[in-house]
């Protein structure tokens, strides 16, 4: 292909853009080199294309809660190996590796905190820990978080990023869908408010349980959200998937979400909703600002890279 046509089509050259760590970062969305300080100030979203880098559970919670108000719960809950599951690796070895990699004990972080002065319970899945998969511990921690929100009359916020139910705990993982949903039903019956935030990617048993059960469901832009993964669907129906399929904007168009909100606006959105449902006076403007995140984002999930949604 001639040089001129390449330019005409807007194709990028094949020169590798590798940069030293620190100052600059290549955006996983648009491929542009972006100044790290700038995207950090944007809560790890690209200032050129709006791409949302994956961040850790702790960072997500840090961003949402008012400074120094977060108090972790059930941190000592750890997984065992009820099925003595072994594929190419033993499950306990996979767990050990995940713990070492993430410095987390399980795929979810839960606790209490204040959001714009509103007493809340938060839980955030961490995709780095075995793909944010749900097994006994995740289910139990979500159930306990919901129960705590119920008993202490707090708002509930769960942030999802997950490949679904964890195969290594078999049917027990599946049952966590029923467990978390049952507690959310109990919470809802008592008049509790639950806001679900979906981030890239949220699929499988997590989507088919607590993630889709929010009184209000919010998604970050461009997140892959679905029941079945795109590859499974493609293989089943032997058909190419439409552009933007299973992305946040697609779900919004199909009536599955209340709104798509970019990360820097999420705290403000939550506080606005909490203010609406709360009897208390509105908090000071300062309390509505999300905290600045210092740690770098995750590596992008590769499988979905080729199916980015059309840019808005």
């Amino acid at each position, binding site marked *: 292909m001639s040089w001129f046509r390449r330019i005409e089509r807007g194709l990028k050259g094949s020169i590798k853009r590798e940069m030293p760590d620190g100052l600059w970062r290549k955006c996983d969305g648009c491929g542009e080199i972006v100044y790290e300080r700038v995207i950090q100030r944007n809560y790890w979203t690209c200032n050129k294309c709006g791409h949302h880098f994956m961040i850790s559970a702790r960072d997500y919670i840090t961003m949402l809660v008012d400074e120094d108000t977060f108090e972790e719960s059930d941190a000592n809950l750890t997984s065992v190996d*009820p099925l003595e599951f072994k594929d*190419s690796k033993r499950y306990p070895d996979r767990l050990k590796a995940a713990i070492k990699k993430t410095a987390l004990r399980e795929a979810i972080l839960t606790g209490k905190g204040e959001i714009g002065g509103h007493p809340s319970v938060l839980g955030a899945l961490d995709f780095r820990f075995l793909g944010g998969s749900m097994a006994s511990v995740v289910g139990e921690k979500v159930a306990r978080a919901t129960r705590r929100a119920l008993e202490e009359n707090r708002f509930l916020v769960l942030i999802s990023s997950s490949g679904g139910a964890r195969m290594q*705990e078999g*049917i027990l993982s599946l049952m966590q*869908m029923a467990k978390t949903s*049952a507690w959310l039903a109990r919470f809802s019956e008592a008049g509790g408010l639950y806001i679900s935030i979906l981030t890239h990617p949220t699929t499988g048993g997590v989507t088919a*349980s607590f993630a889709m059960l929010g009184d209000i469901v919010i998604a970050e832009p461009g997140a892959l959200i679905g*029941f079945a993964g795109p590859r499974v669907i493609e293989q089943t129906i032997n058909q190419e998937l439409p552009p933007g*399929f299973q992305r946040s904007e697609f779900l919004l168009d199909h009536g599955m979400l209340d709104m798509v909100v970019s990360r820097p606006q999420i705290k403000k959105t939550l506080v606005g909703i909490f203010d609406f449902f709360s009897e208390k006076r509105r908090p000071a403007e300062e309390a509505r600002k999300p905290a600045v995140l210092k740690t770098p984002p995750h590596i992008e999930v590769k499988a979905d890279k080729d199916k980015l949604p059309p840019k808005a």
Partner: protein
Amino acid sequence: MESWLDFEKPLLELEKKIKDLKALADAGHPDILHEVEKLERFAEKKRRETYEKLTRWERVQLARHPLRPYTNDYIKMIASWFCELHGDRLFAEDKAIVGGLATIGDYRVVVIGQQKGRDTKENLARNFGMPHPEGYRKALRLFRLAAKFDKPVVTLVDTPGAFPGIGAEERGQAEAIARNLFEMARLPVPILVIVIGEGGSGGALGIGVGDVVLMMEYAIYSVISPEGCAAILWGDRSKAQQAAEALKLTAPDLLQLGVIDGIVPEPTGGAHRDPKTAAENLKRSIIENLGHLTRTPIETLLERRLEKYSRMGVYKE
């Protein structure tokens, strides 16, 4: 014979031989009756040996047996009256889930189950028992009908899974399943769930939350199909046998893990060898359980239902 499984074939051949010899004896060769008896004893021993030692993968094959009774077969055999109801009132009628009003023994219940097809044409209509969101929303409509008129719900679970397709995703497959889990957890009537064949993941659970959950003896219930698990964890679908072993998906496994409350016995060789006996066992079990459930105050049932699911899972603290 093409519908039969490998481990069934020697037994069937033996049974055919016995039948032939018996016919011969009846036709004027009483001297071979002794031989027939010996052969029958041998066949019985062989049968017991085969079914006592079934591997998990063989049980998966039994649960998916093309001759196994499906939801409609059971409804025909256990209900003295059945009126099928259709449609979710939102988008479509999904034939992968059947539901309606039924009289079983002295109980008037709402019965709902996934339905597989018996031949290609029916499988196309039933989508191989893989529901779309409409199926789950039809089920939800019927749950609410049951609650309104204070009728117990009986669900029969038999699906490879919820359908992974474009339309299913567009119309919120995940939401439809999640909504059912949420609503079933607090539905103010007794719910009895029986996995009669294949309990395929979220697609099974979508009608599978209840006060009592039972499995037929050779049914399976799993977070993912052995083939799907093998593809992801072994990188090779043909490792499904190993995945089936690792997943611990048989009725005895689930009873041991505390996920189900009991097992409904099947005739030797599985429900398809003697559907009538299988249906009688199922009916007896339904009537017995509905007896307990309908005598319990609904507040107690709801409290116990939440406790039941709260207990599920194993972890260290």
